[in-house]
């Protein structure tokens, strides 16, 4: 796939470029700020944009704002936002759109999983960092918390669903057969009263909506 990278730190940017190239992808542009990103996207028509949340000039949320803007102009484009740390609210809001990923920078070191997530996002799927999911899926103290009714395995499946993985991806990750995963997924969705949906990213949306609603 064709990738555009926006990251202000030179070493990290170069590392990312090499990572994608080593993985057999084409990096069509790498930028040091978010300012020139829309032009690069319009010029190169990439499949995926990878960008840092904090970039010049204020190092607050330039990346996030640029991501939103690109997503509005090119809804079909996959956007993967990398962050040094987790901001749950921000992350969920962005991921809800589909074709969107939000990962901690650390994840790049697990090259296989990272590239898989990037490819998923480029294809219109979702990728939500496991840490964000964990903070959403941790059971609350309320006695009637539906999450408490899940088994350990079911919770693992739920987390991977929330991360945006397909049934096949989950089966691969958990070293289970796809049919077993399907059974777990049905059970989870039933226990949480979430309507079933074939498409992975719709499922992510439903799960996230449920989880964020339960959180508040």
């Amino acid at each position, binding site marked *: 796939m064709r990738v555009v990278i926006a990251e202000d*730190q030179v*070493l*990290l940017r*170069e*590392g*990312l470029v*090499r*990572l994608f190239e*080593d993985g057999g992808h084409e990096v069509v542009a790498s930028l040091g700020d978010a300012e020139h990103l829309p032009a690069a996207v319009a010029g190169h028509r990439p499949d995926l944009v990878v960008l840092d949340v*904090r970039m010049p000039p204020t*190092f607050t949320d330039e990346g996030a704002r640029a991501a939103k803007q690109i997503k509005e102009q090119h809804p079909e484009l996959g956007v993967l936002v990398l962050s*040094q*740390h987790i901001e749950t609210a921000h992350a969920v809001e962005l991921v809800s759109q589909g074709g969107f990923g939000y990962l901690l*920078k*650390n994840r*790049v*070191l697990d*090259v296989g999983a990272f590239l898989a997530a990037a490819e998923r996002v480029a294809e219109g799927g979702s990728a939500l960092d496991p840490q964000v999911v964990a903070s959403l899926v941790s059971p609350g103290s309320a006695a009637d918390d539906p999450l408490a009714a899940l088994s350990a395995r079911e919770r693992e499946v739920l987390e991977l669903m929330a991360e945006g993985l397909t049934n096949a991806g989950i089966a691969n990750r958990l070293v289970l057969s796809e049919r077993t995963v399907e059974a777990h997924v049905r059970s989870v969705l039933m226990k949480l009263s979430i309507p079933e949906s074939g498409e992975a990213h719709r499922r992510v949306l439903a799960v996230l909506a449920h989880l964020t609603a339960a959180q508040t």
Partner: protein
Amino acid sequence: MGRFSPWPWALAAVAVAFGVLGTVLNALAGSHGEPAWQWALAVVVMLASTGVGLLVAVRRPGHPIGWLLIANAFLLATFGVAQSYAAYALQEQPGALPGPEWAVLWDQSAWPLLFAVLIAIAFVFPDGRLPSPRWRRVALAATASLAAFLVLSFFDSEPFEAPYEHVDKPLPMLPGVFGWLWPLAFLGMLGGLVAGVQAVRVRFRSASGIERLQLKWLAYTAVLVPATLLVCLTGALATGSGDDGDIFTALFFFMLGAIPTSVGVAVLRYRLYEIDRVINRTLVYGVLTLMLAGAYAGITLVLGTGLGSGSAWPTAVATLLVAVAFRPLRGRVQDAVDRRFSRARYDARTRIVRFLEDLRAGRAAPEAVEPLLREVLSDPRLELRFFLPESELYVDARGRPADDQAEDSRVRTPITRAGLPLGIVLHSPVDEGRPGLLEEVVETAGLAIEIARLRVELRRQLHAVEASRARIVSAGYEERRRLERDLHDGAQQRLISIGLALRHAQHELGDSPEKAGESIDGAVREIDVAAGELQELARGVRPAQLDAGLTPALRELAARAPLPVQVNANGERFPQELEAAAYFIASEGLTNAVKHSEARQVTVSAELLNGKLAISITDDGIGGAAPNGGSGLRGLADRAAAHGGSLAIESEPDRGTVLTVELPCE
């Protein structure tokens, strides 16, 4: 002031010359003259009248009172001369001087002129005009009867009084038929006196403000003299001493001196406003004297009868009791006098005293003193401004800085207590009818004002401490935020990029292992840099050199600075948190100097001075740093204050900056 007029001076000079002449003659008259002390009193009175008259005539030319007073003095002097002339030329050295019979005539017949002057003063006091045009007739009648009296007196058929009954009269005698005129002229004179009193009363009734006070002064002396006589008489009766002739003579002179003095005070308006206080004090001490003298006489009488005369006991007991009773009795009498004669003042003081009692008992807040003053003085615009000596600021009751000058018509009266300024009262211009009331009320309420001031000061200090604490907390938060940034954006990213480099090397191991070596070398170099960054970050949190002491930490700080920094410190050790505070202050001060001062050389010193650790940062830069100019300096001041220390800045433009922080070492 008007132009200079020689006349008052001339007339006064003549009067004084007459006085001198009379004194000389009286001395020559020896035993036939007046006793020296009486003469001295008379001269004092004459000089007082001259002096006050001259003052009034010069200050207020055209005002008749000055002339009248000088005339009074002049008349007194002529009587002195006439009397002593007669005594010398008829008794001491008979035949030595010509025309002594004229002197006797003047001395014995011209005295109504003295009354004429007094009546004239009463008529035209205090503005120099008659009370109304109708009074012209009264004045004419009084003048006519006085003239008639003088004529009768000068041409009287009776012989002179002793000791000059044998002296021939120089003027022809009036036929006996005129004898019936005497009672008429006498009544006329009396009428003049009554009219004088009436003139003062009429004026007083319609007067207000200053004129009322002026009239009070005159009335005061007019009433004081008979009142004093009464007191002395009572005293004399009570103590039982016999001959009081000398006392009465002295009192007579006192009266003659008191009148011109009070008239002068009134017309010149010098200390005019004290009349109420003077009357008040006179009443209090007069009544007090009467009561104590009565008690003394009663006790000595009763005990004396019991113990028999000649015993010293009654006197001793009476003296003791009177002495013991003095203070409490004075308080009572003062209260009674105030209640009867100065109601407003009495009420005001009573309310404030009650308020102070409530304050002591905790039933009232000291801040309520401001509304109380407003109420007591019936001045809704009254406001207090408290003075804070530390900041030399004036603040209102809520502690907000406020103008100590009123923009409107209000008057500014300072409040002091034990010689120290407490603040000021802004109030409407005082009612001239109630002089001194404001000062008295404020003085009585002084304690409450002082407490209110202290509380305001305390609240302000507390507020400053809270603000400083909030700034310290927020600075701490900022610091953590910066650290978080540095860690996330620096070390963490670098570690990730190292990880990526290693992953790349891993990838390369498959196709081109020789390149993988290079990649790993690059990664190791990155690790080195990351370690350096972490070290730098840790130093920002707390430099490890501080473990070795403040001096080595400062030397390290100096070595890393981008310009030459000299460190003056002798290696002395202090408590850890104090050394850390000193280090960060020096570091912040040095950063400021580097950033803002354009200095070429900086000196950092740390030394123990009078039990305090003094840190100073001196640069040779452009100066002009203001203590509350930037957040950096305020942060330093806060840091210093948090350790109970203080910050001082000396920063003249182009003269460099010396920043000194002193931290107490306990």
